[in-house]
């Protein structure tokens, strides 16, 4: 059977074609289990994973973001728990 293209690689390529993550302060809103953050985490100056679901954040820390320097935050997009201009880039990764 013909192989399918790797969707994770396609996603990675598109993200990097669109945005420059190098040295950026990035907030991912609705980060879920942190899967997508792994595409860019190593390039950023700061990465914060925000989600309203504690279980997702716990899963992120235990799996996708284990042993990384990503910070986790509990909150909602409508009321961000950060001061203005804290980030260069906000990512909605499959969360809008």
């Amino acid at each position: 059977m013909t192989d399918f293209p790797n969707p994770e690689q396609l996603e990675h390529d598109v993200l990097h074609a669109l945005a420059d993550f190098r040295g950026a302060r990035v907030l991912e809103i609705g980060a879920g289990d942190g899967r997508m953050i792994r595409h860019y985490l190593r390039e950023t100056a700061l990465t914060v994973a925000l989600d309203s679901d504690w279980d997702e954040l716990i899963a992120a820390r235990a799996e996708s973001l284990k042993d990384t320097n990503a910070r986790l935050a509990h909150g909602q997009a409508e009321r961000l728990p950060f001061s203005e201009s804290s980030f260069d880039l906000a990512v909605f990764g499959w969360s809008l």
Partner: protein
Amino acid sequence: MARWFVLDIRPVADEPEVWVRDRSGGETRCGGLTWVGDGPVGHAQASAAVDQILNEGWFAAPAPRRFEWVDVFDDADDLIECVSEEWEHRSVGEETSLRLVEALSRAGRGAAPFIRQGIQAQLLRKVRLTKLV
């Protein structure tokens, strides 16, 4: 210089479809996934919100980029179970399930069911910091 961007990446509404690929690469479309609950409303609201901030001049953005996301499954049960457990706003309808089973049966050994969906990604650049009165 400060940079303010929003990167919006999400599935394109109305597009996830169930397919079967046989050993020689031939594909059969079995049908789309059915919306569940308020999924369509949420998608429409998100798109409307993005359109609004672009139309009002808060952000500027080039056309979205699109790519195809394919999830491959072991068999029909695997696909249906995955959608049921992991897809919050979708389900495999009865007609699609029947066509899936039939297509797998026709395709024979080595066939694989899969879900194909479009994903779009767009980088929005903030161009206005305060609302003009």
